[in-house]
């Protein structure tokens, strides 16, 4: 429900700044994904939103009101932990009902005996029971209400954790890598279920993951983080089509974006081996510096054909590996005609083409690579930041 605003938020432990100052404004009811590799500070950021970790600098606002000083229970949030954090000694029913019990708790309930009695009575309360049953139905947990979390499978525990978040109907759902402990099949299924849940409850979600597929499929907004620095904030499409820098370009998309050193001379792209490609009509080009820049092309904008059928405008290359995936084939190749002497195939020099159907090329084959530069990205030499693009013009 609330609009979440980050105003110059930063986090330090002592002298070490773990999250560099950043600002962003996330509208109501968005599914915001905090995406980044391990240790990039995404969980810390989520915990700051939850109020579990102090904010060192800046102001966090829900609907324009600062929440920096308020505790997690005052922010109207629910938090799903990576480890689920279910109370191991309580039944599934008591786990789900716990937030409801706490909201009705009176100070005198702390008295010995009264406490146990009141908890038991509140669990049987028709109103609480109805709410627990509604959530259990939604999460398909009705048959497990009297079991302990220990006796449930990973997927069921995960659903209990989500159920405990759902039952209080908070305005913000915070989820910390909730799918990372599930196997691949279940992960795909739960991904769809969480997306459906977001559609149904129409509340704000903030979701932490290191998995770019989760981010792209579930998120309506993504914040990409690396080493405590926000790299880019935007919709999945913006981030995929116009990555802010080479880090985002390589982190988002599988296979990652192809990055090639080049020089730009007007609308001609010159590669280190001397090949020159012309930017197509309507293709955007940066007006910035022309030397030592990096060209970025998505794998699906690359086509590969056998060397003997090649015509002008193709780059000579050699296939490193060809992976047939059924509907498509991903061909990894290296530019140049000679196989790398060292035999290494990893690293930045390895480029990818994503081609529908089957490709009759084997490792070691010479091939010709054609690039569609219509939506190509250009990154500067220092720091790899995206170069601003001039309005598309006709060929000079």
């Amino acid at each position: 429900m609330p609009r979440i605003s980050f105003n110059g938020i930063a986090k330090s432990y002592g002298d070490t700044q773990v999250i560099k100052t950043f600002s962003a404004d996330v509208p109501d009811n968005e599914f915001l994904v905090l995406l980044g590799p391990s240790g990039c500070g995404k969980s810390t950021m989520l915990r700051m939103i939850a109020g579990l970790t102090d904010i060192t600098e800046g102001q966090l606002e829900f609907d324009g009101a600062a929440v920096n000083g308020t505790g997690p229970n005052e922010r109207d949030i629910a938090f799903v932990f990576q480890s689920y954090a279910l109370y191991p000694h309580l039944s599934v029913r008591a786990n789900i009902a716990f937030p409801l019990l706490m909201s009705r708790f009176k100070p005198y309930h702390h008295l010995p005996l009264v406490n146990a009695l009141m908890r038991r009575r509140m669990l049987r309360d028709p109103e609480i029971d109805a709410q627990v049953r509604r959530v259990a139905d939604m999460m398909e947990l009705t048959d497990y209400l009297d079991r302990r979390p220990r006796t449930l499978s990973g997927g069921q525990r995960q659903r209990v954790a989500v159920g405990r978040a759902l039952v209080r109907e908070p305005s913000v759902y915070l989820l910390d890598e909730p799918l990372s402990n599930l196997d691949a099949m279940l992960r795909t299924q739960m991904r769809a279920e969480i997306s459906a849940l977001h559609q149904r409850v129409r509340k704000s979600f903030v979701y932490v993951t290191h998995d770019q597929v989760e981010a792209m499929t579930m998120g309506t907004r993504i914040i990409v983080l690396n080493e405590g620095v926000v790299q880019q904030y935007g919709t999945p499409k913006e981030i995929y089509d116009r990555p802010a820098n080479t880090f985002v370009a390589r982190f988002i998309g599988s296979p990652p974006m192809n990055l090639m050193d080049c020089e730009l001379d007007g609308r001609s792209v010159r590669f280190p081996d001397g090949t020159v490609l012309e930017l197509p009509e309507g293709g955007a080009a940066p007006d910035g510096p022309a030397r030592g820049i990096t060209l970025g092309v998505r794998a699906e904008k690359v086509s590969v054909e056998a060397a003997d059928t090649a015509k002008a405008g193709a780059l000579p290359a050699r296939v490193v590996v060809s992976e047939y995936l059924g509907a498509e084939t991903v061909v990894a190749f290296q530019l140049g005609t000679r196989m790398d002497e060292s035999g290494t195939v990893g690293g930045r020099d390895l480029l990818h083409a994503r081609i529908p159907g089957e490709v009759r090329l084997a490792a070691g084959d010479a091939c010709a690579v054609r690039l569609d530069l219509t939506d190509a990205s250009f990154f500067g030499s220092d720091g790899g930041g995206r170069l601003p693009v001039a309005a598309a013009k006709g060929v000079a």
Partner: protein
Amino acid sequence: MDIPAKAGTGVEAPKPRAHRGRRLAPYLFIAAAAVYLLLLTGAPLLDGVWLSFTDTQLLNPTGGVYTGTGNYSSLFSDSAFVHSLLITVIYSAATVIGALVVGTTAAVAINGAFRGRALARAILTFPWAVPTVAAALIFAWIYNKDSGVLNHALSGAGLGGRGWLVDPTWSLFAVTLASVWKVFPFVMLVVLAALQSVPDELYEAARVDGADALNRFRTVALPFLMPTLRVTALLMTIWSFRRFEVIWLLTQGGPVDSTNALVINVYREAFVNSDLGRSAAMGVVGLVLSTIVTVIFFYVDRGAARKEAL
């Protein structure tokens, strides 16, 4: 199916003798410890039980004559002895509950991260490290009716002093308080260790769910602590049944038998009244009491473990 043993393959049917050796080995390994225990614990115990059925006197330790259950029937018809059993139970229960509550509270208080935590832990562990005799003497000074610091403070606050160790109304309370002070660090250290096994995320989940500090302790920490607390309670109870120095040094069981716990009675019967047989009978009653407590604790523990396995 028999696998024929072949020479040179290394797979040969074990010979009967080797088999027997392997079966006996564990018993041989524990034999030394078993003999040691039997000699140093079992023998005196049996001797004590035998003594309790005789009229042995301290001045003539070998001249006792078998008197059947005479010592026991005389004990249980003696209201002073029954009173001392009651004192023992009250003193033990109060000490155990006091030490568990104070120790657990102290453990929770010093579990978090704060400035000066190491110092706080050291100070709170101090009573456990002090020799019991020194601790008892310090408390004797604190409790002194005329010059003690406790009465001084109470008078200062306008509450008036009390004869802590000489007034039968207060003596058992004073002795219990000193005992709790002496033993709570043990509970604290054990609980502190158990608290390390509680995942931080559970506290955080409870915070998000709106639980206050007491509810977080109750819902998150306490279930993890229960097995530890049960064992600690058992140990503390048995130690309380046997605690001698603190009571003897503070009150010697007085005034008017108000702190006359079983062990004090045993000591006085043997070494003041010189009646070894009667003293041994009291000791056996204490042993039975400890055994009953142990059995109860094991049943409770097993029941709780079964409930947790659900």
